[in-house]
């Protein structure tokens, strides 16, 4: 396939393109879903195609095809070139980029796992779900619904460009989530969930703490606990966010604002703030494609979709803004280095600045010390997502939480949502625990510019933040 891509690059240059990038995805996706006793989804997807970016006068034009046929690929190059040429007439800000040496990948760039999902049959994976669902049923109370899912995405990504780069590596993410819905005595529905996901081999599901039985049990117990949970009070409280929720905070709020396309266009509140103190000394946020997966989890993304090798970028260093998340064009415009953050959901999309694994760095508190420092407030746990606006306003949903008084957990609460402005919030971070955990999921994923769902890793320690606005009962 590399030869076809190289021929496409040459053809684009012959047409008149200043620079050409060609990439090929050959990915396999499997989704399994059991709802109560019913196997609702037994799904296998093959996602194969070619994406071509032609640059003309520093303006990109993009096209794609599901075909591997050389004629079809050449037709795709023509379309990309035509789009670039037409678009260049309208561009008043052009994102040219510097020449760089060709990048060559190595076999070791692919993350090796002991039990790759391609080596296990369907029944093995369905058994994971069955064990998880049965365990959830045993642990739960007044159950209305148990849904167990398994997802895997793996396969080859090939890239070349006008510089002669030759990149070939395999992506991998697996995910095993469980969700239990229970009914309260008043008929209201509440839920609990748990999962283990990331660039992992299936051996992870034999490891203590991550077996299907333990995941199911946790989901069942969390839902049961929510049956008697009180409504989250509305108002401002000190919060302790757990590792997953801290990750969403890093990703949704600060991560998106640090994506350099927003910065170049002046649309991020982080414009012209390099070197400025934005947060307390406890707030350090990084992004990188090659985290210590074995120790902390996350996703393995050694190259981005523009052929840049993964970096570990310190975006916010002890409260001071240091770097943005760049593609090659934005990096030159902002006089920084490319950071390996130019990504596309699949071959049907042009790569744009996106996150890889974004997380807060750990601090020095134990969980007990953090709760003691919290005093009275809310311990917010797990997340079903969040959203941020261009001005830094955000809302995050915690799946569950606890009301804490004098450093002691009092009772569970439900409908926990945190809101505010991220730039304000960073000045209120009062500490972080010393544990660090990351996750990257198959189900869900990041959305931007119509491109979703992109697998991203996120996480961090538990984070102590004062004066957080919680939505809830007035």
């Amino acid at each position: 396939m590399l030869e076809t891509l190289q021929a496409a690059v040459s053809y684009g240059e012959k047409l008149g393109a200043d620079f050409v990038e060609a990439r090929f995805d050959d990915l396999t996706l499997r989704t399994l879903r059991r709802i109560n006793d019913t196997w609702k989804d037994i799904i296998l997807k093959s996602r194969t195609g070619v994406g071509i970016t032609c640059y003309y006068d520093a303006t990109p034009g993009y096209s794609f095809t599901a075909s591997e046929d050389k004629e079809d690929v050449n037709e795709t190059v023509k379309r990309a070139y035509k789009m670039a040429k037409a678009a260049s007439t309208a561009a008043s800000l052009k994102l040219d980029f510097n020449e760089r040496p060709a990048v060559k990948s190595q076999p070791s760039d692919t993350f090796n796992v002991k039990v790759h999902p391609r080596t296990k049959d369907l029944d093995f994976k369905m058994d994971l779900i069955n064990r998880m669902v049965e365990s959830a049923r045993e642990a739960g109370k007044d159950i209305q619904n148990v849904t167990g899912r398994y997802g895997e995405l793996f396969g080859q990504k090939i890239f070349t460009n006008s510089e002669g780069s030759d990149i070939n590596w395999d992506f991998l993410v697996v995910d095993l989530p469980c969700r239990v819905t229970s009914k309260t005595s008043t008929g209201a529905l509440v839920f609990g969930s748990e999962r283990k996901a990331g660039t992992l081999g299936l051996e992870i599901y034999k490891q203590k703490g991550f077996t299907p039985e333990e995941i199911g049990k946790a989901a069942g117990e969390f839902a049961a606990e929510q049956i008697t949970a009180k409504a989250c009070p509305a108002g401002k409280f000190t919060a302790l966010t757990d590792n997953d929720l801290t990750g969403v905070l890093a990703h949704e709020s600060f991560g998106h604002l640090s994506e350099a396309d927003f910065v170049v266009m002046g649309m991020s509140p982080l414009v012209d703030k390099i070197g400025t103190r934005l947060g307390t000394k406890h707030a350090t946020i990084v992004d990188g494609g090659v985290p210590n997966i074995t120790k902390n989890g996350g996703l393995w993304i050694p190259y981005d979709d523009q052929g840049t090798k993964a970096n570990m970028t310190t975006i916010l260093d002890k409260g001071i803004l240091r770097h943005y998340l760049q593609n090659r064009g934005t990096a030159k415009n902002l006089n920084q280095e490319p950071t390996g953050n130019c990504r596309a959901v699949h071959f049907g999309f042009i790569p744009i600045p996106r996150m890889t694994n974004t997380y807060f760095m750990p601090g020095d508190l134990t969980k007990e010390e953090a709760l003691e420092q919290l005093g009275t407030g809310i311990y917010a746990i797990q997340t079903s997502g969040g959203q941020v606006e261009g001005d830094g306003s955000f809302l995050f949903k915690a799946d569950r939480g606890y009301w804490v008084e004098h450093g002691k957990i009092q009772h569970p609460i439900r409908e926990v949502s945190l809101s505010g402005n991220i730039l304000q919030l960073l000045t209120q971070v009062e500490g972080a625990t010393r544990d660090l955990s990351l996750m990257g999921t198959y189900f869900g994923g990041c959305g931007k510019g119509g491109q979703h769902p992109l697998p991203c890793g996120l996480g961090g320690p538990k984070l102590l933040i004062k004066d957080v606005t919680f939505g809830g009962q007035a």
Partner: protein
Amino acid sequence: MKYDKIKDTLLSEVDSGLKFAQSLDNAAEFELFLYYRSNSNVEIRQGVVKATDGIVAGNAIRAAKDQRVSFSSSSGITPDRIKRSVREAIASLKATSEKDTRFQGFCEPKPPGKEGKFASKILELTTDDLVKFTLQIIGDMSTVNGRILAAADSNISWGGFAIGNTRGLQEVSCSVYNAGSAYAMAIDGEERRTAWEALVTREKPLDVTGLGEKAATKARSLLGAKKLNQTTVLPTLWVPEAAASYVLSSLQQSAKGNNVVEGLSPIAEKLGEKIAGSSFTLVDDGQNPLGIETEAIDAEGYPQKRTTIIKQGVLKQFLFDSYYGQIAEKPLTGNSSRAGGPFGSSLCYEYTPTIIGKNLEVSPGTKTEDELIASIDGQALLIVDVPIGIFHSDVATGEFSAVASSVFLIENGEKKMPLEPISVAGSFYKGLEQLQGIGNNAVMTSLLVKTPSLLIDGFSVTG
């Protein structure tokens, strides 16, 4: 492939694919879905241009035997890719003994409904036209005073899908539309306020006149926001775009037959009961000739229909596809979708059929928005855009907490100053019961829900 060749080509490949599947296993039941769509888009953000043009093509097959059901999809609609999916689906069937005991078979053939209207002139639009539309939107924004950051895009989308199954169903539907949007960020010192406006049309090519100006003016009007400085319970007036997000997050979710059957809908047991104010009527019209989601058939080949979900506050009907309709023993409503709707996937063929509202419409009331505002005693909030996080609400609980970041204070019947972002929380369903008024200003929103403004009492607000 040209637009006028899509139907014949897709139907021919469906027929061949099904024959191939049956040649491998004539005891199994099969359903084959083919998708082909051309998408061209030009986006300009503060002078940076991005242009894309490509064909999304893919196939998906479901195979069923002895109540075991499998699904396989692959990119492309060529015979070799279709055969690849067929082989994978059959292999999955053989690889498991797990059953879906509720599965009763694929969709029976029925006469199709009607496709939506479209203007053939849209098919004649070029990349240069898209550049022109987008530049016009940007230019309109620059006519508004103050510092405005501008982004816009415009696109053309045309294509179709075909479905066949071994029960004799073979249908196809095509559609065309032209869309544009404007995103404005008004800046004053450290304060930033945003607004978004969009147009989608199928009956004529885009006329973007005024779109950019509208977005920029709205963003600018939100500058100078003050703090509400209280935690209390207030009435909230949701303009159409915000009201559409309310309907999508609540009733569209809870009216889906899958959530009803699986015990995840808070209104599952309330058919025939009054669940909203008497003036509230909600229909899903999959046959509205101008609706963006209007097709002759749904994603399983069943004819799309018009379904009344709520009539004058009383819950009348849920939305079903063939799977859940058969389980619930209810009439099918033609609401099967493969990752369609406002949050759909570009590779929609990769998704199994699920249920979605096609073209949801809330019936208009009699009061203008100004009259609704004038009817309010004391304080209230005017929510003028989609609240942040509203789509993260959970269907099962019916409770929500979102942040209205584009919001004005209403005081004693008058619209006052803009407010800093405010957390709004409560129960969607209690809100519908406490509906205080419905505007006469129903419009098609960018969320593909046609709705007027809704005045709702009883939500907690903090800000």
